[in-house]
């Protein structure tokens, strides 16, 4: 039988982990073989409702299941948030190009996440951790709106303990129980003890955060070709045919979803 690129493979929700009031992590077990490279995305089908694109947040080294960390935002995600362990979903993919890990070897890696944007970055962190001696320093800077909006709360302390890892959090609005930095994530970028001009920068978060982090990192000396940005676009097919996710001469689904800034810098309105 001819392969139909639009037909999803059945998968089952194995576990639902509540991260914040609006964000849940879904552990998904596909019924067919499935693997992905960190940074690639999948199309998740809610049966009879439709599809939406998400980047797995788990370790790509784990082959039989993967995690999706998803914020309740639109029709698909609202429905997904009502679903439970044992419910069936569908997946297509993986699509797009992952992070080029070999290019990161021996270098300082500065990872900046905002809100639920930490999801794809967690997958990247797991990949880096699995060969941690291959890299120089791994710096993670993560910003969330409030303490209650921080994802992966139970895992972050473990990451902090690792050698070579420098991890700082910031919240936009603090309270008495928060002892960390208060302010936008851009306020905790300068203090990384790395040579920015030789480092790799990786950013994922809401568009407004991406914009200001990008400007700040360029200011600190990161080269445009070393700055990896996750571009959020409306996507439907995942294979460069439906036309929704065009960015200049690229499609986010097949040429991205991660782009280095040198490819985007001359384009208009990339942050809209």
């Amino acid at each position: 039988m001819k392969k139909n690129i639009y037909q999803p493979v059945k998968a089952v929700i194995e576990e639902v982990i509540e991260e914040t009031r609006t964000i849940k992590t879904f552990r998904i077990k596909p019924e067919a073989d499935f693997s992905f490279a960190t940074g690639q995305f999948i199309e998740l089908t809610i049966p009879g409702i439709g599809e939406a694109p998400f980047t797995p947040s788990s370790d790509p080294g784990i082959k039989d299941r993967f995690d999706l960390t998803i914020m309740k935002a639109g029709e698909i995600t609202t429905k997904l948030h009502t679903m439970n362990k044992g419910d069936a979903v569908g997946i297509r993919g993986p699509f797009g190009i992952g992070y080029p890990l070999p290019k990161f070897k021996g270098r300082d890696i500065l990872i900046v996440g905002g809100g639920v944007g930490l999801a794809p970055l967690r997958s990247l962190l797991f990949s880096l951790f699995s060969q941690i001696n291959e890299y120089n320093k791994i710096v993670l800077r993560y910003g969330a709106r409030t303490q209650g909006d921080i994802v992966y709360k139970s895992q972050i302390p473990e990451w902090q303990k690792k050698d070579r890892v420098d991890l700082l959090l910031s919240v936009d609005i603090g309270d008495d129980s928060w002892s960390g930095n208060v302010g936008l994530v851009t306020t905790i970028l300068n203090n990384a003890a790395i040579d920015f001009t030789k480092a790799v920068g990786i950013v994922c978060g809401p568009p407004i955060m991406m914009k200001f982090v990008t400007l700040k990192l360029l200011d600190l000396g990161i080269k445009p070709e070393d700055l990896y940005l996750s571009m959020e676009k409306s996507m439907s097919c995942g294979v460069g045919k439906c036309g929704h996710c065009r960015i200049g001469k690229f499609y986010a689904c097949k040429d991205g979803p991660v782009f280095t800034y040198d490819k985007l810098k001359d384009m208009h309105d990339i942050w809209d």
Partner: protein
Amino acid sequence: METYFLKNEDISRFYDRIASEYDLYLPLKVKNPIKKDCSCQAVASLPTDDYVLKRYTKDSNLEFVFNDYRCIEPTRAFFTQYKEELCTYFAETSTKEKKERPQALCGIKNCDLFALKVQDYVFLGGAEPDPIYKTRRENTLIIASDCPNFKEVCFCRAFNINPYPTEDFDINLSPLNNGFLVDVATAKARSIALALKDIFSQATLGQISGRAAKRELLVRRLDEHLTQYKIPQKETLRDIVISGYNSTIWQDQMRTCVECNGCVFICDTCHCFLLSDEPNNDNSKRLRLWDGCLLKNFTKVAGGANPLKLRYMRLRNRYLKKFDFFISNLGFQACCGCGRCIEVCPGKIDIRYILRKLHEEKYLPTS
């Protein structure tokens, strides 16, 4: 490629032979009595009738004709339907291969063939071809034909596309004297010609040069018609659209847009679609619907952000897609000069005018 001559009186045998193997679609004339409101004699003399492709059957009493120019509807509608089921999912019995009868499309013009190259790039290219498009494309016999005339909106020649096909067809018909020259280009076409060898005579040199003269005359007439529009040359299209990013033309032109998206859906090079699911007991359906970048929610994401929230941004995006994206990736523009979008627009938004303005703003700036 072999060229034969087929007499007018034998054309129905030709059609019947094709219809025995294919679902054959032939042009029907749609009378369009509304004359253009134009004082210009040259324009008033141009034809206003239209053509649509309808299924031919031997006993049908429809009056099929030879179309003098392209049909109303885009050819792509024969390869991706406006709304169609792509697959079902999860039930054990899902996705039966639906067998479609091969189709033969007659009256396809060179602008349509040019547009088909864009559709092929999208649906056959990339890492994975679209299985439905691929099957249909392989199962389609293309019977192209010369344009002996043109409509007021035709502007293929502005992009050096000729009003007569020379490649990318199975068969091409060129009307000549009391019959047609028939170019036979592929194996599929050869088997038809072989079966009809009693009515196919070898084309003479005189007939071939007669056709060349007719073609040349039509090209000259069309070029003359196009001079008034000052459409920029295709080599400049990408530059003028990019440099016109901040032009006021986008806002100016969108004043009369009623957001019907007629231009998108009638366009033969447009290809965008949306996957949409329908519940159906345990066997949900996945549909493909044509989508259009002039529709408000085309680029809206779940969080509510919409990079193309204003109408003028969407018009500009459409031109960037056609003249930047495609020229950068495919090497030529996604516009075949068929003029369907001009004809369909209730707001009189005219691609010829927009391109001319963009060109003038770049190369003839007013001080």
